[in-house]
């Protein structure tokens, strides 16, 4: 009998929840957060969910600009160029009522720097974090670090007392077979509190009524129901049928359908992600080509010819249905170091490309394998297919090998590909991030995603100097000089900047953020 009463209660609750006011935001996207532990995964959907619950010292608002969150202001110390001073917001409380203090910042940054943390690579320049009073923190770096703040925008603050009480001091060690409290429970300072969560099924959040930002942000959404829906057609159907109010990742072929439905809108903005091809120019001979004893891609004329042969406007119109922004450099437009001149995509000129090929001694062309992911970027495989046809015009026979991302990316990091597609986002909004991973000679510290074999000692020296150059003008000049090398050497073949599409009910008011990370406190609801 007792069971029956509780069942009835559950059923009643379910009915009332279904009939709740319009302030509930039902949100769907393709992937789910991987863990609730804010330092265990450095990954888009995981950070996006964490941003509703936890907060960093500094966030990026929906247009990508810095905004004070748990820190009210921050500046390099006047006494020591190696120290940044952060003044913390006062009167902030965690969801369990504990006060947010400098001690928590020290704890959280050290936790994020620990061995099992996925965030530690962003914090390598930090030597020490110390509290200078209850609401002041000093971060000591191994040299002046002018862009430290860019590395802190996804670095969430946990309560040290809560972590100690619940055995969540350490980041989860999956390979050691451990589970941790923090990967399934939360205690943040953020605008929303966790109500329930079933991984890959449904996560419910409710507004934190004690949020410090009440009155400063719209906070129109009082309850969030987040459901991952992997299948694109089902995700769109759920929006069309009114079962969800807001979806990310609208497939390009369905944009028209969503936009033309009454009560729904699609919003679009360039994403912080550029798509390009890399070429193995360092090897003496390529594995998957038909040129013996030489590497055609080592010749800059061949690389330029490939660049000229690709018709980016055709890819935009035919493959992407207008949803891309042709690129001339591998930096998204928000990034420090980006210029309109460099990003102006080169004109397609097949004849000039053929002439370059002939000059390089390949008038009869050659054949090569192109490795491409088929489940990572928007229409990735179709872009590669279009490229196959375009390169055939200059005599290059391309064998396309498209694979799931889990098989594609190891090819790049293990030097097993001659010609590959890659996409890159720049979370720090600074060119140094691109150079460190994609341009610097591959080594233990830098160049982990540079699959081109490119190695230029001068460029490497310039890249290393960026980390500690405090004079921003001199630093920007160095960035420009590095870009000149990258462009002149035709290190990569840029294709386009991806465009993000969010579909939503017209009651929802929000603009697309370049990071694809909706922060619900900025949402308005009509």
């Amino acid at each position, binding site marked *: 009998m007792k069971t029956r009463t509780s069942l009835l209660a559950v059923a009643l609750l379910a009915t009332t929840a279904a009939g709740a006011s319009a302030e509930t935001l039902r949100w769907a996207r393709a992937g789910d957060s*991987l863990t609730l532990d804010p330092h265990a995964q450095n990954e888009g959907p995981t950070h996006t969910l964490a941003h509703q619950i936890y907060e960093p010292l500094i966030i990026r608002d929906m247009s990508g600009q810095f905004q004070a969150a748990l820190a009210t202001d921050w500046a390099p110390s006047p006494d020591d160029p190696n120290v940044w001073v952060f003044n913390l917001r006062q009167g902030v409380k965690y969801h369990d009522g504990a006060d947010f203090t400098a001690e928590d910042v020290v704890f959280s940054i050290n936790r994020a720097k620990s061995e099992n943390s996925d965030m530690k690579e*962003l914090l390598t320049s930090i030597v020490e974090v110390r509290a200078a009073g209850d609401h002041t923190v000093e971060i000591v770096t191994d040299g002046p670090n002018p862009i430290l703040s860019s590395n802190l925008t996804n670095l969430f603050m946990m309560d040290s007392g809560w972590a100690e009480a619940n055995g969540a001091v350490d980041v989860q060690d999956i390979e050691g077979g451990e*589970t941790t409290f923090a990967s399934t429970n939360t205690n943040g300072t953020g605008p929303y509190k966790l109500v329930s969560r079933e991984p890959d099924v*449904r996560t419910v959040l409710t507004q934190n009524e004690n949020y410090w930002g009440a009155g400063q942000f719209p906070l129109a959404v009082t309850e969030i129901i987040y*459901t991952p829906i992997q*299948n694109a*057609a089902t995700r769109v*159907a759920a929006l069309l049928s*009114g079962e969800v109010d807001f979806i990310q990742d609208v497939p390009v072929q369905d944009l028209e359908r969503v936009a033309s439905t009454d009560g729904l809108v699609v919003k679009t903005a360039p994403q912080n992600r550029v798509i390009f091809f890399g070429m193995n120019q360092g090897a003496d001979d390529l594995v998957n080509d038909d040129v013996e004893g030489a590497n055609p891609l080592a010749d800059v004329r061949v690389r330029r010819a490939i660049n000229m042969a690709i018709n980016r406007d055709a890819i935009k119109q035919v493959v992407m249905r207008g949803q891309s922004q042709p690129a001339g450099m591998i930096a998204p437009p928000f990034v420090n170091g980006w210029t309109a001149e460099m990003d102006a995509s080169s004109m397609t000129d097949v004849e000039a490309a053929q002439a370059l090929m002939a000059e390089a001694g390949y008038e009869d062309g050659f054949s090569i394998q192109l490795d491409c992911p088929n489940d990572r970027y928007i229409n990735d495989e179709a872009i590669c297919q279009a490229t196959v046809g375009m390169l055939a015009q200059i005599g290059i026979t391309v064998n396309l090998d498209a694979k799931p991302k889990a098989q594609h*990316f190891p090819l790049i990091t293990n030097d097993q590909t001659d010609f590959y597609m890659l996409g890159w986002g720049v979370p720090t909004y600074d060119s140094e991030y691109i150079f460190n991973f994609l341009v610097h000679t591959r080594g233990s510290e830098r160049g982990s995603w540079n699959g081109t074999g490119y190695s230029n000692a001068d460029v490497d020296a310039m890249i290393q100097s960026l980390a500690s150059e405090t004079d921003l003008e001199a630093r920007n000049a160095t960035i420009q000089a590095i870009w000149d090398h990258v462009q002149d050497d035709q290190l990569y073949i840029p294709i386009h900047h991806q465009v993000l599409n969010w579909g939503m009910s017209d009651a929802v008011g929000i603009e697309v953020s370049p990071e694809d990370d909706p922060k619900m406190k900025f949402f308005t609801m009509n």
Partner: protein
Amino acid sequence: MLAYVIRRVFQSAIVLLIVGLVAFAMFRFVGDPVDNMLGQERTQADIERLRDRLGLDLPFPVQYWRFLQEAAQGNFGLSYRQGRPVSDILIERAPATLELAAVSGVLALFVGIGLGVFTAIRRRGTAANLIMTVSLIGVSLPTFLIGILLIYLFSVELGWLPSFGRGEVVDLGGWTTGFLTISGLKALILPSITLGLYQMTLIMRLVRTEMLEVLRQDYIRFARARGLRERSVNFRHALKNTLVPVITITGLQLGSIIAFAIITETVFQWPGVGLLFINAIQFVDIPVMAAYLMLISVMFVGINLIVDLLYFAIDPRLRVDRTGGGGK
């Protein structure tokens, strides 16, 4: 009989071990889990440390042996993707798949038998011919397309049924069920039709053929000649004699309904083990893939074993033959 059972159980165990070995040999072709587990900022040193700790560089028979040792103690490890014990995740996800499979199976059985009988009795009627034609479409359309079509018709255009998920579920001490809420029941309709459609048409065609066969038999003619009512002849005498092969097929198909729920679960975002497996493949979540494949093979081997034993135990003709009794 006992010797037969022991021999069959032994054979089943060998099959399981071989399935596991093949699975472990395949995992290296699925991709590298380390790439998904570490963010894009990871260094070469991180990669090597993780590969080493996970034992990914070991030869696959060694990895398999390690898995078997742990599995024998009931430990399937932690999911690389979710960081939770695989056994917990499987137990949490199983009710969704089992309920979906049960509803699809029941639907396929009843509708399939009903339509089979109908099309056999009225085999020259327009309705029966129409059903036969439509059933051909049902067999030849791929599952995901049927699912998407149903979603567009019943969720988007008509707005009657949900397009994804299980609706509200009630937790009965670890078993979540969608049978007790309206939204849970509504959520079951489209996925179970999608999943059961193939089996439904299969059973329908099987029943129809068997019925046509039986209806030609002498005892049916005699029953008719005796003036028994048509309904009694069709259902009490004819149908009963067609059911033995139908039940055998249904039993075997139940295994495939559970195993092939993967596609239906992906289309409807149904939170069962099939969706879990798809996610595991994309993420190269080896512990989950290994446990799932072992579970499915245990299930198939188990069903086959039971069917074999049942066949041996209950098929009356076998017993009749052995005692050398008179035939027809």
